[in-house]
């Protein structure tokens, strides 16, 4: 089974088309890697649940959570990571990345 890492930079309150994840990721293992304002998915229950319905795994940049006053606040399936681990996820654990 192929695997796709969806890179997300925009806030859940901007126009983010998660249906794209379903379309592009059909039949693949899917994960999201959240940078910048996309980290709000990890601390907004409703938006977080919405994202979790579209992917199997979610990685959240700890730097960006801390910068926004949410250090250590990611819960559930949202796994906080640092930059070395982000490189590992990109280069070793997923077949390719798609930025949405």
């Amino acid at each position, binding site marked *: 089974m192929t695997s796709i890492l969806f*890179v997300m*930079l*925009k806030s859940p309150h901007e126009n983010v088309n998660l249906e794209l994840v379903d379309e592009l990721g059909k039949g693949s293992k899917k994960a999201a890697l959240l*940078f*910048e304002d996309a980290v709000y998915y990890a601390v907004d229950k409703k938006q977080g649940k919405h994202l979790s319905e579209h992917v199997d795994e979610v990685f959240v*940049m700890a*730097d*960006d959570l801390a910068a926004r006053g949410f250090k250590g606040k990611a819960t559930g399936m949202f796994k906080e990571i*640092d*930059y*070395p681990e*982000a*490189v*590992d996820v*990109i*280069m070793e654990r997923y077949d*390719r*990345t798609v*930025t949405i």
Partner: protein
Amino acid sequence: MAKTMVIHLRTGSMMSMDSNVAVKLARAALEKGYNVHMFGYGEGITVIKEGQDPKRFPNVGKEIGELAAKGMTVVVCETCCMARGIHRGEEVKGTKVGSLTNDFSKFIKEGDKMITIAR
């Protein structure tokens, strides 16, 4: 042979934190022993302009120059540069004004994984 990460940056150095994300990813990848190629397109070309002097923000141009000195390959699209009044010779030392055709296509061929930083 070390794997290669290609970073395709399409956001300007002052528009958002995107270029800082790109720099931090590149730094972490270099430190883990990967090769890193960065290609700037559209507003992404602005990161290589020499003489950037952001008073209260990270100096992306300076950081990219430092990473280029550590082995990162940095190329930006000449057409996009000219459209914005930036010419060859005005780029940060160690970076290059190049093209989609010659450079980006080569990066994609050589790269093992590519990440696009764009809005």
